[in-house]
């Protein structure tokens, strides 16, 4: 049985039900999904409002790093069956899901939650995508703080 890996970086709206169907096999009984969305109001740290975010990606490298995240997940949790990793780019408004990591397995207690959590953490570390925040204070690039090692 080939285990499906769905990788997508584009401007299309997320369709969770369709993505879930793509990573559901006859042996699949459990799926953990993480999805992140644009916050209109941020309270933690510098409290502020966001009008929208403008995402850009280094497309071929981003897709290759998303594939790498999927491979890292399969190494760490061999019971994972299907994996979907999606990042939207372009202009995205508050309430809109921007990213998704979904991992399926036969049962819920063999790592689906941990795998999805690891997946979003790694996406935010190594997948070359950036966002600019546009709000009442003007526009500002959001900068990460992780420096991948060469070859990572």
């Amino acid at each position: 049985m080939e285990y499906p890996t769905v990788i997508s970086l584009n401007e299309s709206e997320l369709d969770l039900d369709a993505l879930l169907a793509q990573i559901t096999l006859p042996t699949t009984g459990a799926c953990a999904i993480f999805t992140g969305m644009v916050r209109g109001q941020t309270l933690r740290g510098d409290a502020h409002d966001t009008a929208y975010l403008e995402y850009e990606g280094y497309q071929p490298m981003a897709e290759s790093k998303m594939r790498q995240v999927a491979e890292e997940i399969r190494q760490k949790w061999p019971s994972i069956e299907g994996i979907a990793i999606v990042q939207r780019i372009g202009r995205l408004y508050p309430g809109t899901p921007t990213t998704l990591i979904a991992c399926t397995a036969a049962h819920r207690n063999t790592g689906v939650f941990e795998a999805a959590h690891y997946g979003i953490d790694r996406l935010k570390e190594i997948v070359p995508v950036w966002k600019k925040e546009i709000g009442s204070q003007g526009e500002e690039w959001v900068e990460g703080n992780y420096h991948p090692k060469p070859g990572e």
Partner: protein
Amino acid sequence: MHTVKVMFFATLRDYVGAKSVELEIPVQTTILGLTELLIKRYPGLEKVKDSMMAAINREYAANEQVIPEKAEIAFFPPVSGG
């Protein structure tokens, strides 16, 4: 000398004023060497040089790495997707 394509993303593109440039560089030029060359040409990069990241052919690269012929080079700030 050989030609490389250098791409810039996010803040770095703003500082350089271009999405990508084609440059003639000496063979055996390292990422650090190319970075210094770029800072001379685009002084705006000076203030972000410590957080700049580099990729050679879509893999994260170290300062001392030598740039191969026909390489696709990218410079960008720490990623902030999700």
